[in-house]
């Protein structure tokens, strides 16, 4: 098992290097001369050349990448010129908030998605199945940013039961119950699409597994239907759902961009949107890279979890 984990960890390294190259390349492709942007339109050619030399921009791209990645590894992501502070500090401040939001949503969508999918497969073509299928369809067709606004209108404006924005109350609060109250609306909004997707795929996986020969064997043994479905069929289906959850983690982390904006959640997503509007490129670069790498690591975790449950994958 340890061998397998190490192997998977090693295989993530080229992916992360690839990610860093893409992020670097995208930023290097930005049209316009950074030196001109710094000096303004009255710059003399000598000054432009000096700035380029100072920033290392006169060197070939691969050298620039190498310098950039070395700095990254030492925790130097550059400096945000809009916020006037190191990119890494800003990211560190906000990463936790995104992790709390996305993590809660991921847990919610896994639990409810799998439950809904299993129930709907077991009661295939029955009323429960139809209702679940209907809600799943609504879930995956709803723009989450709009749903967030609706939730704010209903729960924060009309009924005044939950806060409309932020992570903690401005006055008082700051404790766990306060955080949880603020977390309810954004995490549910963020989880809804992924819940639909997971429910759909769980239903399909269960139906697929229930047709397998080993399910017939379980029935031929005289096992109760409850055991056939929830032990034999579910375990096999669950193994194939784990990677789906891993992929949904990507959608949840991406969707956080909208939800953080709608609910003014102080996370990386909201930061990215602001940074793009203000063209704070280094901040965008750092934020994208950090989120992308955590996504890769999450998928790695999903792979390991799958191998733990499925002995066939280890050999």
């Amino acid at each position, binding site marked *: 098992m340890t061998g397998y984990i190490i192997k998977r960890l090693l295989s993530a390294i080229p*992916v992360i290097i*690839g*990610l860093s190259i*893409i992020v670097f390349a*995208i930023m290097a*492709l*930005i049209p316009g001369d950074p030196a001109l942007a710094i000096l303004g339109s009255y710059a003399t050619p000598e000054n432009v050349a000096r700035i380029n030399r100072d920033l290392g921009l006169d060197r070939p791209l691969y050298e620039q990448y190498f310098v950039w990645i070395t700095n990254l590894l030492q925790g130097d992501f550059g400096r945000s010129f809009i916020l006037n502070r190191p990119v890494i500090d800003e990211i560190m401040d906000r990463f936790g908030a995104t992790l709390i939001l996305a993590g809660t949503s991921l847990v919610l969508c896994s639990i409810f998605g799998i439950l809904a999918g299993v129930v709907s497969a077991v009661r*295939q*073509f029955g009323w429960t199945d139809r209702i679940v299928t209907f809600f799943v*369809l*609504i879930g995956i*067709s*709803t*723009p989450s*940013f*709009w749903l967030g*606004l*609706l939730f*704010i*209108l209903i729960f924060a*404006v009309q009924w005044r039961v939950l806060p409309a924005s932020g992570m903690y109350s401005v006055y008082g609060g700051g404790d766990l119950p306060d955080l949880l109250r603020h977390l309810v609306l954004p995490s549910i909004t963020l989880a809804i699409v992924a819940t639909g997707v997971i429910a759909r795929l769980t239903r*399909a996986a*269960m*139906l*697929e597994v*229930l*047709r*397998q*020969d*080993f399910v*017939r*064997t379980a*029935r*031929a*043994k*005289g*096992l109760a*239907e409850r055991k056939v479905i929830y032990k*034999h069929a579910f*375990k*096999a289906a669950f193994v194939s759902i784990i990677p789906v959850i891993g992929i949904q983690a990507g*959608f949840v*982390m991406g969707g956080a*961009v*909208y939800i953080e904006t709608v609910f003014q959640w102080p996370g990386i997503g909201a930061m*990215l*949107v602001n*940074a*793009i*509007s203000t063209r704070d*490129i280094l901040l*965008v670069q750092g934020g*994208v890279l950090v*989120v*992308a790498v955590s*996504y890769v690591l999450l998928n790695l975790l999903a792979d390991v979890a799958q191998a733990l449950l*499925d*002995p*066939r994958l280890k*050999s």
Partner: protein
Amino acid sequence: MTEALATKPQVSTARLSSWALLLNNRLAAAGLVILGIICLLAILAPLLPIPNPNATNPPNRLQPVFSDGHWLGTDHLGRDILARLIWGTRVSIAVGLSATAIAALVGSLIGLVAGYARGRVDNLLMRGIDMLMAFPYILLALAIVAVLGPSLINALYAIAVVNIPFFARNVRGVTVGLANREFVDAARLSGKSHTAILFTEVLPNVAPVIVITMSTTVGWMILETAGLSFLGLGAQPPQADLGSMLGEGRRLLFNAPHVSIIPGLMIFALVMSINLLGDGVRDVLDPRLRAGDLTRPRSVTNIKRDTIPPKTMQSSDILVVDQLETSFQRGRATIPAVNKVSFSLKKGECMGLIGESGSGKSVTALSLLGLVASPPGVITHGGVYIDGEEVLSKTEHGLRALRGAKVAYVFQDPLTTLHPLFRVGDQIAEAILAHQPLSRDAAHSRAIELMEQVGIRDAKERVSAYPHEMSGGQRQRIGIAMALANDPDIIIADEPTTALDVTVQAKILDLLQDLRRERGLALLLITHDFGVVAQVCDKVAVMKDGEIVESGETKTLLKNPQHSYTKKLIACVPELGQGKAFLETVRPLFAEAKP
């Protein structure tokens, strides 16, 4: 005996056309209608009697819904929301479709080339695609917009790029399968260029996959471009799509919620109708779903008998099958698989049920305890008596009490019939615990005993092995140990040796034979091999097209087969050293079949 033939439904093979199927799907049809209306409104926007969507009228700002002259009210600049909605929908649909077209074009091209060329090109292209997939979906789009700058056209490119991998992967998958097919080889030999083969031979066969992928992604693309506009990274004023309308309205959420709710509803209706239609298209184009194969089989086969047989029967036989009839339902057609099959089995007796694949012998075996997958299976007639009691009249609970206890099954391919994720010992113990009130530990040690009895050496260690860690022969021994778990009176072995090597086959047959003698088991052996029957069975029944065509004592039947089909089956067992002579003797028997 009542005549059952009269009630038998006609077998029809008529299939519905794709269009009819799509329209038959009520939800898909509803999606099509809604989408049609929305698209029509968007296309006809310049002709509709609506105000200029950009005409501001500040004194008339934030009018509510259903106000005079403004059905849906006005926004913060006094612009008519209905007009802006229709024009915005036009923009959103155009952007979504363009993004889909770009993603489909580029992605499919990459997939086609990678799947057709294979080797290094494939590797390089797909690594690149994997790289794109390694980013969370919308994050990559954000990065691209960050570089190109916020604008609707840049959002379109960004969304197209992040959707390329879906097309590339799906198309490559199908292309790989097609590239080695005969018709592609033929085209290559006829001197066609690779480009010509790709576009005239491969592409038409890949088209359904492209259509399915488009139908599943276009909704996403409309949603995501709207999302980027909502964030202020897509459409810039005065240009407006649904997303930017929603984004502008958000600032007025508390005072005038309709300004943001209405465009959101439109996005929802648009995406929902596309998804409904997309699901319908996928169902039509995916033949697996068309055949209804993905329905959940119930725990007991559907039993819909035209006459209910008597509950008990006086008989010294342990198993009596009387006029059993099992059919498969395909759509509205009912296709009989087992037709009025009758036979009986005494205690300690071994009967062979022989026939070629598709003759209905496995369905017969599974029907005895209602294990035929249903749908599509239905038992339409007859009865099964075990110890004189009719089994198929029992409740699900009563039937389950027999399964694995009095009657146990051994199946064909133990790699697929054992659960891949449970240890073999646990699977045997589970069979014991299903019928006996033992502790877990006791069941576990009993499992080891059983494994030893079926000839597994170092059973104590192998008990915690997974099925994939064992050889085929060992796995089948586990299958037999599981069948013996509750000391059954009858074992039904469905092709127990077909998936095994010849030498292992002989050992497994010997094992079954020994167990039968020691325990006085009745054995129903299903096989297609007369060699096996001759070796172990006391009597034999020959099945063809769902009916028993001949039955009797094995020796008599082998010596003097009556039915021509039996003769063919017997002739099909080659003898050692027979060589070419074997083919010579077999050939005339199959004269009607083309060589």
